[in-house]
């Protein structure tokens, strides 16, 4: 893994999916983590929107199928990791 998942991101996703934060890696993806199905995906988007104060484009949401893609999308929305 070239870089790690920012703590704020892994903490939100761990919370949504009821997983341990350590279980969230950049490779974690839809269908590979219990609860990350289409419903979980939407709950994750809503939780990330609320955590980071951004709005996801609904047309893009189905494409953001991994932690790496979510991270890149949030960065594109101006989210900076500490």
């Amino acid at each position: 893994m070239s870089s790690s998942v920012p703590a704020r991101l892994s903490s939100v996703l761990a919370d949504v999916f009821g997983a341990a934060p350590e279980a969230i890696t950049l490779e974690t993806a839809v269908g590979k983590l219990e609860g990350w199905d289409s419903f979980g995906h939407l709950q994750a988007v809503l939780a990330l929107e609320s955590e980071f104060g951004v709005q996801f484009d609904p047309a893009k949401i189905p494409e953001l199928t991994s932690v790496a893609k979510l991270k890149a999308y949030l960065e594109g929305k101006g989210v900076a990791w500490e």
Partner: protein
Amino acid sequence: MSAAAPIRFGDEELALFSAASQDRNPLHLDEAHARRSPFGARVVFGALGALAALARLAERPGQTLASLTVEFPSPMQLGVDYAVELQESPERAQLKLHDGKRLLLRATALFRAGSPRALGAAPAFASVAREAAALAVADLQPGRSVELAWTPEWAALAALEARFQLAPRGLGPLELATLCAASYVVGMQLPGVRALFSRAVIRMEAPPDGVNASPREAGELATPFRLAARVTGFDPRFDLLSTKATLADAEGAPLVAVDLQAFVRQEIVHADAGALAALLPPGAALAGKLALVVGASRGLGASLAQALAQQGATVLATFRSSRAEAERLVAALPEGAGRVLLEQGDAADPAFCAQLRARCQAEGGLDLLVLNACPPLLPLWLEPGSLARLQEHVSQSVALCAAPMSALLELCAARAGRCVVVSSSAMRAPLPEWPHYLAAKGALEALAAVAALEFPAVAFLVLRPPRLLTDLTNTPLGRQAAIPPARVAAATVRALLAPAAPGAVALLEEIP
């Protein structure tokens, strides 16, 4: 972590929960209504699923529920065995219901020291409207609220308690009533009939200390409850409704606060005549022809029936249960269109197909056979627990195609007619969780290939439409990238108007 015997829901539990909660949302109770939902069949009340899972907790003497968060990622069906998974610690329990790999329900319960509150000596009953509100998206703006006197139906609640034995697990009548009230608010009020309940966060207020809080004995519940609910948000991207509800006692003392989340199913317009006419100008190219569309009341079948009629064909339109939609299809026919004649029945039943054959013969013969009917469809993984459902789906799908083929292709051949078999774009680009659907569509395509050999006078067309905006896909995520059925219907009828080689199977995949 502990596992336990599977949970299976039946009519009896649904009826009991419906009576207790006064939630009569037809998605749970009315098979014909549920057939037109994305789930294709009745689903279990989410709150009932939560109660059944909570009933599997170890007993918690000296504790009572402090809060409960419950989510419903996938619908629970009747008559299926679901695995329950529990993780318990002194003040916390996590509960999950699984259908194999599929997560159906997830809950986290927190407990505190204390005991569940008791009912007053003679709890009052408040009867409420029996019909679910039918609020549409436009009605669901923040601030919209309802306030009413509400109670569970106490005898049914007691029967639920007897079934689930929740009191030793820290859930008394108030906690049960709260899950009932949450279900009632979502299923009957905000938004009512169009609800897909997705999430509830329940916080129990600590009971008043001492004797001053109420003239009643400390901790006893004064009924009927005051139930208030208010829309706090609506996200139009996902048709997601957020509501805050509170339950107070008869004197107004707060008992419970609940945050509710529900998706709101949109209204599907079946067979939009205007949209179709814009894609395919009405004409008389099929005047004098008889078409039979199997599964014509809703979705693609309705659009196909309409498109054929708009080209002048007489259409025999079969449907199994959606009479209102089928009648709307007839009513919406523009002037100058061919007749649409409705036939209600099960196309998998050879007797019904024989009846259709006689009807076609009475009309002078059959030119076009369109095989569109399919059984209800929910995703499932290819795993041991889903085998029976997979086989059932394939068997029903095959029967819905093979029975009309076997009864009617002969007539079609006599008129050098055409036969359309509705498959799916998923045949080219398979998806996980649809093994039954793809196995069935593969079988239908195979039937078309063999039928083309056995009835060489008939020209076959296999449709592989992309995801369509129909009742089946009418969920917030299902709707994404779904196209209106009218587009496929227009493309299909265009293909049918062009010449075709008898005995060949053409494939229609590209939908303009």
